[in-house]
C-alpha cells in the first residue's frame, strides 16, 4: 500500500500547479505497482479548498480511505513534540498526521513535500521530484 500525500493530490488535480506534470507521472507510477491510499486528513484539507464533498469523493474514487486512529494521533503528537521549532520554521500539528499514518502501518508514502523529514526515519518516502540539496 502506498499512502499518497495531499501535496500530490492537489498537484494532480490542479492543471495550473507548478508540479502538475511531475506529480501526475509519480502517481501513475505508484498506481502501476501498488494500491493507493488516501488519508482522512487529506479529505479535510480538500474540504477547505472550496470544492463540494461529492466532487472530492469522486476525485478520490479508487483510493483506499484511511481513517485517523488513536495510534496515528499519538505517533503524530510524539513526532511534533520532538521536532525542534525555530522562528523560521513553525510547523503545525495537523501536518504530522499523514506521515504518522504511514509510519504506524509501515506503508510507503508518496509526497511532493520534502520538508521536516527528520522525525520520520522509519517512513519509506517516495518523492515526486528530486529532493532539494
Amino acid at each position, binding site marked *: 500500500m502506498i499512502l499518497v500525500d*495531499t501535496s500530490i493530490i492537489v498537484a494532480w*488535480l490542479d*492543471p495550473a500547479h507548478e508540479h502538475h506534470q511531475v506529480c*501526475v507521472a509519480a502517481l501513475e507510477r505508484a498506481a502501476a505497482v501498488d494500491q493507493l491510499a488516501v488519508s482522512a486528513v487529506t479529505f479535510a*484539507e480538500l474540504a*477547505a479548498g472550496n*470544492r463540494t464533498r461529492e466532487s472530492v469523493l469522486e476525485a478520490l474514487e479508487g483510493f483506499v480511505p484511511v481513517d485517523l486512529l488513536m495510534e496515528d494521533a499519538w505517533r503524530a503528537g510524539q513526532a511534533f513534540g520532538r521536532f525542534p521549532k525555530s522562528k523560521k520554521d513553525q510547523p503545525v500539528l495537523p501536518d504530522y498526521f499523514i506521515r504518522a499514518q504511514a509510519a504506524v502501518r509501515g506503508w510507503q508514502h508518496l509526497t511532493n513535500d520534502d520538508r521536516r523529514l527528520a522525525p520520520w526515519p522509519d517512513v519509506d518516502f517516495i518523492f515526486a521530484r528530486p529532493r532539494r540539496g
Partner: protein
Amino acid sequence: MTNVLVRMDEDLVRLLSAGVSATQLDQSELTRQALRAGVPKVVQGLLQARSGTLQKDRQAMVDQVRKKAGKWRGFKGAELLKRTRP
C-alpha cells in the same frame, strides 16, 4: 474431497465473474477455506486469479489517474496547501 474441489472451483468462478478486486479475493471465505484445508489446486487457482485481478486493478487505477489529472480547473492547490500546512 472431489466435491469440495468442485464447490471451490465454482465459488472461484462465481467470485471472478462478479469482478471482485484482489483485496476482496484475499478476504473471501473461499481463500480462507482453501488455505485452511491446504488444497493445492484451489490455492494455485486463487494465486493465478489474484495475479490476474491485481493486474486489472492496477491498470484501472492508472487509467483513473490519467483520466482525472488536471480535472479541477481553477482549483488553487498550492495556495490551499500553504494555508493547511504553512
